[in-house]
């Protein structure tokens, strides 16, 4: 270390203050920066939803609906949604890793909004989900899926899906901040997210479900998501299902954002 500029250690001039959203953007960029060093990650982001789509469509679709083409047409988009829904676990694992790292100690001791520290991670994961949606959606189109709702309907369906993923990610933020180990987060995923997916209208119409499950499917937020996506993709008139979905998203955010922030502050106690 040579004394090149004697004032370099002490000289700072800016005094501006950026808001929580600008800070979130900086944090999101930080989470995405590793892609530049390891571009192969771009493949990892879509592999799981892609494999879920292809394997279910080709191996189970025929049995469930006569032909895999019919199944793809009915359930393809919602199965993509399910694959992406499982991918929100990455948010929990990512935050769990973040707060164990020294850099989060430094950031926590800085005048940075606590919301930004969490939202940065979620924002970055949303970019990954959007990328995966683009790729897997493209594959669905390539193997024959067509949306009657056209470009607009497809865009609307993608929009509600991303909105739902954003809200649901906050449940994973809470998981990442409160879990004692990474295995615990995985266990929560298997025991909560999977049953939720299988008791919804993602695969089948509600009438084909057994009685008790019908009731579950009725109130399941993933049913609201699946039904809303179908309305837009099929070019129908959006109604109650979309309202229900918005209600779910608002409720999840209203509950889990404060809980996550509180969990983050709690961790400072120990």
């Amino acid at each position, binding site marked *: *270390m*040579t*004394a*090149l*500029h*004697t004032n*370099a*250690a*002490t*000289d*700072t*001039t*800016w*005094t*501006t*203050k*950026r808001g929580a959203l600008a*800070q979130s953007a*900086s*944090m999101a*960029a*930080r989470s995405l*920066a*590793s892609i530049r*060093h390891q571009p192969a990650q771009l493949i990892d982001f879509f592999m799981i939803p892609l494999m879920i789509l292809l394997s279910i469509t080709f191996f189970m679709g025929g049995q469930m609906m006569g032909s895999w083409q019919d199944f793809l047409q009915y359930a393809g988009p919602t199965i993509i949604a399910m694959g992406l829904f499982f991918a929100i676990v990455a948010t929990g694992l990512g935050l769990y890793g973040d707060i164990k*790292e*020294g*850099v989060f*100690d*430094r*950031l*926590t*001791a*800085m*005048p*940075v909004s606590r919301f*930004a520290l969490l939202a940065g991670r979620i924002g970055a994961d949303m970019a990954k989900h959007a990328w995966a949606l683009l790729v897997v959606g493209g594959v669905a189109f390539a193997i024959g899926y067509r949306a009657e709702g056209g470009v607009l309907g497809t865009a609307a369906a993608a929009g509600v899906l991303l909105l739902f993923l954003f809200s649901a990610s906050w449940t994973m933020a809470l998981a990442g901040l409160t879990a004692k180990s990474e295995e615990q987060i995985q266990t929560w995923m298997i025991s909560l997210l999977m049953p939720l997916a299988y008791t919804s209208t993602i695969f089948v119409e509600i009438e084909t479900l057994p009685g008790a499950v019908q009731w579950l499917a009725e109130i399941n937020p993933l049913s609201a998501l699946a039904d809303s996506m179908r309305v837009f993709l099929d070019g129908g008139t959006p109604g109650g299902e979309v309202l229900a979905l918005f209600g779910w998203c608002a409720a999840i955010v209203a509950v889990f954002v404060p809980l996550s922030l509180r969990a983050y502050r709690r961790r*400072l*106690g*120990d």
Partner: protein
Amino acid sequence: MRYAIEVRGLKKSFGEVQALRCVDLAAAPGTVLGVLGPNGAGKTTAVRVMSTLTRPDAGTAHVLGLDVTTRAAQVRERIGLTGQYAGLDPNLSGEQNLVLIARLLGASRRQARTRAHELLERFDLAHAATRAAGKYSGGMRRRLDLAASIVRRPEVLFLDEPTTGLDPKSRGGLWEVVRELVAAGTTVLLTTQYLEEADQLADSIAVIDAGRVIASGTPSQLKQAVGGQVLRLSPARPEAAERLVQLAEWAIDVKARNEDGTVVVPVANAGEAQAVMARVGQAGIDLAGFGLDEPTLDEVFLTLTGHRAEARDDERTKEPAA
């Protein structure tokens, strides 16, 4: 505001472990407070409390007159922290790490980049600016870490063992930066396990052990308290070591120790060293080697915590046999 850092009666437990039993610290503005202590003494816990990362169970900590528990947000605006473990993102390059911090602190893109380059240059890291911080050597990481904590000049800077693992050159360079910052008005609290480092940098020193402050004062006060230097005596015949310990304790009022055949005697001044050597000479014990050294932190601790005034009085009543 008399003190930039003022800590009173701090207590913190982790389950069964009492990390801080009772810690009082104070640093006047623009000074360096050295916190000296062995592993597990509670240094990191104390720093984490003062830098708003950990809530204390009892006691108060004020930084720049602000209570760190109730006014944490204002405290964070004005402090810098270099933790014991690298506070860097290993996936980001050195430059990206600094830019991120500058951006979060409100710099524009251009300002952030300018500041990052300035600091990389200053800390001899310009050649590694685009390399991932995770691939830096230990010393480079430590330097980047310090750079990161002064992206915006803090009014109070906490450095938790900033030079552990650094080579002498890097250590000297870091000392220089600390001095520059202090000259510009920053108050620095630094923890260390090296007496020399505290001696070089600190205006005052607090020694903590097992969660308590066991001694505090200026470096010279502390050195007086622990006997300034240590006299090391290696007898030609190892069996003679115990005898040397006795002789030294009779010669001057201290507790000497036998460390694997080398006898360590804390001495306050040259006169005391002479008295010990004279007594050894009288007894006719051959020495293979001897020397005066700065006491190591271990020795400071043994002296500070191992003083048993009663025991020494007992020993003094016994008259030397020779």
